[in-house]
């Protein structure tokens, strides 16, 4: 049987956490009884810097948190906003929950699909946009709603899309 790698001897294949991120991760752990609680935040830090979370980052984060890589991998694969493959410069989250469904989210998704030439889960060839579905964005009084980066839009009609997308080069 293979020995379980301990945090000290995991190969990270040359991946280096940015020193600022590593320091921020360590600072984040101080809010909790156990450092593992900073796991999601640590993953988000890597994602903010690289756009996504490469496999090699997992053991690197595990070492900072003092936990096994499987714990970090388990978290990284569970949460929908942690991206495990490269995404476009801007991620479009289209709400597909009930209120938006009833006010036209299928049509909104189709307009986006037609305009960008990609389906859900795909990235445009120029690496500009990735299109993903998302749970109720809490903007139901503005349905159909979507989010690009940190910005929430709604209600979004087909006629709004050109202007909105233009804001994300």
């Amino acid at each position, binding site marked *: 049987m293979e020995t379980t790698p301990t945090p000290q001897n995991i190969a990270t294949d040359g991946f280096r956490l940015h020193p600022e991120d590593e320091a921020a991760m360590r600072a984040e752990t101080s809010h909790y009884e156990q450092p593992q609680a900073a796991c*999601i935040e640590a993953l*988000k830090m890597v994602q903010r810097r690289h756009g996504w979370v490469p496999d090699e980052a997992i053991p690197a984060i595990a070492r900072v948190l003092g936990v096994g890589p499987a714990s970090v991998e*388990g*978290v990284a694969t569970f949460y929908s*906003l942690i991206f495990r493959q490269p995404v476009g410069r801007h991620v479009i989250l289209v709400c*597909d929950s009930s209120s938006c469904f009833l006010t036209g989210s299928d049509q909104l998704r189709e307009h986006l699909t037609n305009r960008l030439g990609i389906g859900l889960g795909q990235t445009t060839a120029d690496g500009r946009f990735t299109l993903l579905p*998302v*749970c*109720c964005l809490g903007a139901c009084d503005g349905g159909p709603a979507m989010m690009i980066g940190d910005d929430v839009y709604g209600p979004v009609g087909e006629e709004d899309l050109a*202007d909105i997308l233009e804001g994300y080069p």
Partner: protein
Amino acid sequence: MNSQRQSPIYRSRLLQPADERSPDTHPLTWRLRDDGQVVGLEEYESKEGYQAVSQVLNERDPGAVIAAMKEANVRGRGGAGFSAGLKWSLTLQGNNIPRGYIVCNADEMEPGTFKDRLLMEQQPHLLIEGMILAAFANNARYGYIFLRGEYVESARVLTAALAEAREAGWLGPDVAGSGFDFDIALHTGAGRYICGEETALLNSLEGHRANPRAKPPFPGQSGAWGKPTVVNNVETLCNVPAVMLRGAQWYQELSGDRTGDGGTKLYGASGLVNRPGLWELPIGTSGRELLELADGLREGRKLKAWLPGGASTGFLLPEHLDLPLDFDTVGKEGSRLGTGLITVVTEDQSMVALMRNLEEFFARESCGWCTPCRDGLPWTVKLLLALERGEGEAGDVELLDKLAADCGPGLTFCAHAPGAAMPLQTALRHFRHEFEQGVGQPKGKPHADAIPAGQV
């Protein structure tokens, strides 16, 4: 950028102007500004802000806070409606018990719900004050606001407000000179509806996958890191300062003779209404009153059904519009009040398509821990897709009955699958003919680009 047309940036808003809101009638929203800007620390303090903390912490009687919350009958605004005072009275406290945590459930993700966002984005100090009072009553040493990752604006406003409160001495050692120490950290998530389930939330907070935990032990006995932990919704906590300042009796009387539940509620309406929105109203307000505030249905549509408080509540009919929307009344109609923000379904909208959408949501968001939920919900999606296409087989509707029953309360590890079963069972009960029409009548493929459950 083309400036002729305004990009529809979404902003959370209350559809009641400031002159219609007063401290005596609108404990949650009376301070909110008409311009929608954040009520900062100075403005909050000038409008009775943190008075309840000063008063209550220096009286040094945590038991009195719990008693007041019980008497006011503040029921959990996250959707379950459990008495907050009763929950607090069950938190383990004592000489041999370590001080635990207050966790604010700000993982607002119930489809159709957009209320906590308003409170956090425009009046963060009310939530902070409520958490301090809750911490004092439950002898908690530290608090976490568990905020969903997509609420970027809430995170920005809360981060600034926490710093302001700390600077002013409302958080930290010796809060308001009372000798009580307490601080709060903001913890942001990264998606997944299941994080709103309180024990899954605790696992997520601790940095694990958000699988629910077995109950008992309840969080009040053993929660975050095994310490006594109180998990309350944003709106619930925002009710605490007014209860302490104006008294349980005043709070109880806010709802008049509409209901036994106390206080006001953030109610809302979405779907094809003319004026979708959010209002603070006495708890026990009826669906008809909400529809009137929302200016009725768009383009002369007729109401077919409505969800009283999110995707995991049961469908109600037009005949239920005059019922007071409180926890017990709605419960007696085979539904739940849930979050109290109604979603309307109009006559021209297909219940089968809507149910397919709802079950796709629940199937995708299942954490996969227990079988009825992990395997049963995708099965309902397959059946509903077939019925929607008119390609259902004989027995499919009955199979939906069985799958829904197998996902019922007590048969699954947490409330996720029962939440998925309730709208399905009520839809099958009230609109069975629509489902039966989908059996053996192929009519093409109306649902383009189906989202395969579990693969997104």
